[in-house]
């Protein structure tokens, strides 16, 4: 039932493979996909991977540098696979221990690994063991525990109290019901209703009853006072009151916005029109003192507080266990330390755990998102488990080195990042190279767009800026100011008589996707080489705005979709990127949706060495960081240096 099983070295040489009966296609493709997306992207924490119709499970053997991969159809739920892989690994190691302990890569090539017999035996054992467990059959009523209990013991005593207290019609009714049901209780069904009847009187009733008990105790056991039970049901109003709406439908003149759109925006007088075009603004609504923060956001604050408390608890627990561990090792510590330094020993999970926890906290302190840190540390643990340490290397140094390697690996771009080259390509094909900037509010899209256009102009390209931010006040003016400054720095005489930068805008309130389409057509006609599209900032959970962005990207198919994120963001980065990618994937109509192609990391000068946001963003998307913004002037644009970032991260 397995499609294939392969054992290969980490250097790439297949030692032994098995292909199930009737499987015609080779496993090279899926296994390569597994390697590229899981192992090389440091997601080794989860050990299963789905590729088309196949489900792949794998196990790394770090001592002998082997990888064991098994593939089977996704629809089959085989329960024995995990244990099976472990068994195969142990068996293979034991059998070929001598060959595998040789040094050098030739050991994989010279030796013939005849594993077929053993494999089939193990497979048969595993399949048998999974069949052996018959599904548990249901017990009959006689056998069950319920038939042995008496009826009385099953009745909830809550009912009894209730029948004493309440005044008021409703409660009398409930008491009657409770009483009836108590008598009739002999079957499980009625037991349920008894409980439900008891619970039917809400939590407030229970509070009232408790209060009554308390007060009665206070009064020295006197009569329980009659408490008017606050009935949760509202007083029945006399007849139905007429619902009053805001606008009331009384004045249709208020609803007519036809005069305010589509006029010129550069004149001062038109600012009045634009003010009235702002939706939801009611004059005089902000008079007086500012209102407090809304009810909804206080809920959010509570949630955040709870989360913080949980995190703090976790952090408190971890150092406790660390201290305990240290105390235990105290006496054997002297010799243990020496033993640990000299001679080779295997790394186990327990050895690595304290070090990995410390590293995880260190990463979180450096502004890497919390779940990314834990996934990274799990992945490093999987990679190092069972590895043989050399002499004079401590666990901490090995783990640190492995973590450093994996961080550099994450930051390396997985594809070629050379925008100038791609623009040259587009120029030779006589079509403009379109770059779209998207991101949440206030991250620096417009500023970095201006920086990038400056860089492109310096390299001799002509740029068209499309102002597709039609919501924020002043967005178009901001871009116009940038355009003027850039043209002043690079006067048209130097660029064959035409301005280096031009702004394409259609004012406020219009549809961004339409403006973008017109801008690209204009650029193609006029021979602009690059089109930079500036979009409005939007929160990732604002569904209509995300739909609008996805539509803009799906309709215009830009060459590069850049997500602009600030380096100050912490755990939010994960949420932002996931939701942005999700929105882009959901709302595109094609099979291969355009997702985020690259990341622009802004405000890099504001963080000293808390550079973790770079890791979070590249880990989540797998896309490279194309630009790094380090300030607010035109020359503050850099490319990412993976090594420098990682050394800043690992610095104590």
């Amino acid at each position, binding site marked *: 039932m397995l499609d294939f099983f392969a054992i290969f070295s980490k250097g790439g040489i297949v030692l032994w493979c098995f292909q199930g009966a009737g499987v015609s296609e080779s496993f090279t493709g899926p296994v390569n996909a597994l390697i590229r997306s899981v192992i*090389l992207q440091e997601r080794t924490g989860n050990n299963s991977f789905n590729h088309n119709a196949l489900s792949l499970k794998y196990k790394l053997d770090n001592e002998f540098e082997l990888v064991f991969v098994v593939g089977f159809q996704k629809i089959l739920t085989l329960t024995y696979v995990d244990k099976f892989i472990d068994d195969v690994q142990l068996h293979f190691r034991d059998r070929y221990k001598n060959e595998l302990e040789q040094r050098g890569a030739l050991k994989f090539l010279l030796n013939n690994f005849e594993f077929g017999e053993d494999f089939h035996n193990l497979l048969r054992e595993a399949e048998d063991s999974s069949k052996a467990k018959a599904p548990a059959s249901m017990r009959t009523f006689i056998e069950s525990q319920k038939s042995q209990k008496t009826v009385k013991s099953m009745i909830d005593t809550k009912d009894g109290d209730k029948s004493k207290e309440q005044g008021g019609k409703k409660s009398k009714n409930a008491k009657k019901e409770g009483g009836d049901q108590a008598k009739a209780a002999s079957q499980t069904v009625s037991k349920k209703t008894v409980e439900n009847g008891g619970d039917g009187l809400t939590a407030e009733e229970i509070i009232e009853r408790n209060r009554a008990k308390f007060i009665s105790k206070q009064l020295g056991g006197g009569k329980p006072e009659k408490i008017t039970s606050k009935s949760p049901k509202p007083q029945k109003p006399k007849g139905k009151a007429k619902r009053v709406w805001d606008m009331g439908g009384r004045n249709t003149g208020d609803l007519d916005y036809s005069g305010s759109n589509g006029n010129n925006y550069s004149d001062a007088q038109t600012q009045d029109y634009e003010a009235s075009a702002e939706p939801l603004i009611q004059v005089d609504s902000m008079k007086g003192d500012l209102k407090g923060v809304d009810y909804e956001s206080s809920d959010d604050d509570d949630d955040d507080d709870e989360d913080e408390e949980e995190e703090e608890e976790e952090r408190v627990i971890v150092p406790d266990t660390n201290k305990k561990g240290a105390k235990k090792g105290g006496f054997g510590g002297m010799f243990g330390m020496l033993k640990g330094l000299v001679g080779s020993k295997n790394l186990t999970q327990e050895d690595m755990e304290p070090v990995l926890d410390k590293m995880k906290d260190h990463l979180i302190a450096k502004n890497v998102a919390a779940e990314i840190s834990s996934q990274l540390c799990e992945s490093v643990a999987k990679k190092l488990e069972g590895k043989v340490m050399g002499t004079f290397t401590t666990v901490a140094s090995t783990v640190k080195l492995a973590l450093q390697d994996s961080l550099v690996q994450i930051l390396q771009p997985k594809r070629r990042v050379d925008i100038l080259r791609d623009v040259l390509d587009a120029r030779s094909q006589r079509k403009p190279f379109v770059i779209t900037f998207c991101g949440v509010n206030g991250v620096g899209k417009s500023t970095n767009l201006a920086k990038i256009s400056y860089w492109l102009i310096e390299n001799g390209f002509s740029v068209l800026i499309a102002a597709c931010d039609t919501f924020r006040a002043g967005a178009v003016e901001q871009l116009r100011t940038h355009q003027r400054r850039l043209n002043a720095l690079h006067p048209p005489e130097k660029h064959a008589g035409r301005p280096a930068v031009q702004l394409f805008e259609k004012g406020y309130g219009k549809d961004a996707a339409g403006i973008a389409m017109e801008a690209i057509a204009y650029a193609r006609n006029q021979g602009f080489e690059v089109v930079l599209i500036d979009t409005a900032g939007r929160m990732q959970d604002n569904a209509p705005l995300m739909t609008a962005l996805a539509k803009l990207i799906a309709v215009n198919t830009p060459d590069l979709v850049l997500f602009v994120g600030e380096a100050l963001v912490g755990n939010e980065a994960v949420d932002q990127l996931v939701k942005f990618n999700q929105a882009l994937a959901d709302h595109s109509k094609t099979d291969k949706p355009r997702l985020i192609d690259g990341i622009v990391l802004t405000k890099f000068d504001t963080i000293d060495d808390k550079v973790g946001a770079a890791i979070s963003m590249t880990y989540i998307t797998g896309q490279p960081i194309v630009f790094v913004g380090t300030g607010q002037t035109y020359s503050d644009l850099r490319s990412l240096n993976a090594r420098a970032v990682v050394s800043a991260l690992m610095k104590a």
Partner: protein
Amino acid sequence: MDEKIHPDVEDFSAEPLLDTFIKEIQKEEVVFLLGICVALVLVILTVVFFGNFWGSSKARNAVLLLGLCDSGKTLLFTRLLLGKFARSQTSITESSATYKSKNDRGSSWTLVDVPGHESLRVQIVEKYKAVARAVVFVVDSSVFQKDVRDVAEFLYSILTDGTVAKNTPALVVACNKQDISMAKSAKLIQQQLEKEMNTLRVTRSAALSSQDGAVGGSVYLGKRGKDFEFSQLPGRVEFIECSARGSKGEDGDVAGIDALEKSLARL
């Protein structure tokens, strides 16, 4: 000594210590002093010599197999070492083994198979570039047209690396997978690469500097003012065709790597 030590005016200057030191030395016999000086000089000389020889003997004993993913490096590695076929997957780590070259001197050096994956190759090349005596750049000739930009970028980044530019190892571009019918010839690949590198010279030098101010690859390939050609490079450059799989398919023992082996023998 009658000096009173005033706690607030304590003078911790090093002079009294030096004086006492010199006095001590002067008290000893001259022979002793001479012996000590000679020993020191010997130690320094040995360290310097070892440093030199170590450096030079460690130097440049490795031949790196570089290339994009799926270009056939691991199979080529197997073929060169053992002459037999081995099925391979994407490499995660590098493999190295000693290779006895087929020339009269019977010299041997280390053959290193570097994984082609983008996230691994840079780190591993960093490790081995100082000891690289030659670079075999493996190119997949059948899909070259599609990947020409990636191939050129990788080759450019290697050639403009500071250490590589200083050591100038020999460059052998092996146009692999010639057994596939759509494979491009070595000459065509050379021309295309030269054109691409020409463009890359311009775009890469205009690329942004990295955030700590370091400008990568300030090496300029070839001659300024003229189109880039591989013959302009200081080291030896060869373009050869080969086929790691061989014309007889998987089980074939005859692989078209004779040209490659001859080229390696000349190292």
